């Protein structure tokens, strides 16, 4: 079981399986909402129990982004037409048992850092 929470603790979540496909997203939306980069892994939404007043923001029309309205922690991303939900790795209690596998949307990355960890880039 994987557990996580926001910075202030108002929002907690439990995942009844190990999230998969751990990635770092470099898209402009994730960079703004995270403050730098967003790392996440996916799980079936039906396997994720979220407790707390998540504020959802639809930035693109295809997905919604969930954060804590009190402390601002960026916790969730969910496409409207998919059954999976992405969970912020930074919010997970350790040990996470998860290792980053890839970088995504690197064409949109910020110009002030380099990616040098050798992981695949898309």
């Amino acid at each position: 079981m994987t557990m996580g929470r926001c910075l202030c603790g108002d929002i907690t979540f439990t995942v009844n399986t190990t999230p998969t496909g751990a990635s770092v997203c470099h898209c402009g939306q994730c960079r703004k909402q995270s403050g730098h980069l967003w790392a996440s892994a996916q799980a079936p939404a039906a396997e994720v129990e979220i407790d707390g007043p998540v504020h959802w923001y639809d930035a693109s029309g295809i997905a919604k982004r969930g954060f804590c309205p009190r402390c601002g922690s960026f916790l969730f991303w969910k496409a409207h037409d998919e059954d999976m939900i992405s969970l912020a790795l930074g919010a997970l209690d350790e040990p996470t048992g998860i290792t980053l596998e890839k970088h995504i949307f690197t064409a949109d990355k910020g110009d002030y850092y380099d990616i040098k960890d050798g992981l695949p880039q898309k």
Partner: protein
Amino acid sequence: MITGACLCEANAFELDASPGPVTACHCGQCRRYSGFHAASIDCDGTSMRWLRQGHLTRFTHAGGSTRVFCGRCGTKLWFEYADGGLSLEAGMMDAPTGTRLAEHIFVADKGDFYDIADGVPQQQGWDD
């Protein structure tokens, strides 16, 4: 001139001077907040102008530092040190930013799901 705005455009700023270096923070608080780790630029408030502000939401830690974000879209805006200093969140800067990531701090607290492999200097805490 450096510019930036939040995701919903309620907040936008201009920065006259080239921003200072970017510092990445791996402490547990920044990791919960950002979803990975934070990156920000210590900033002299006199060199920047907010063109508009909206939905400002403040979360203050017990130690007195405050995190400010847009309450509508969740964009991270700035960090206020307990002594009043400001650090601008790097993610909302438009390119070209004219700056570089120059240091990782609090790497002793980094998450267990990633390695830091970019060759940028690392500090175990605030200032080793």
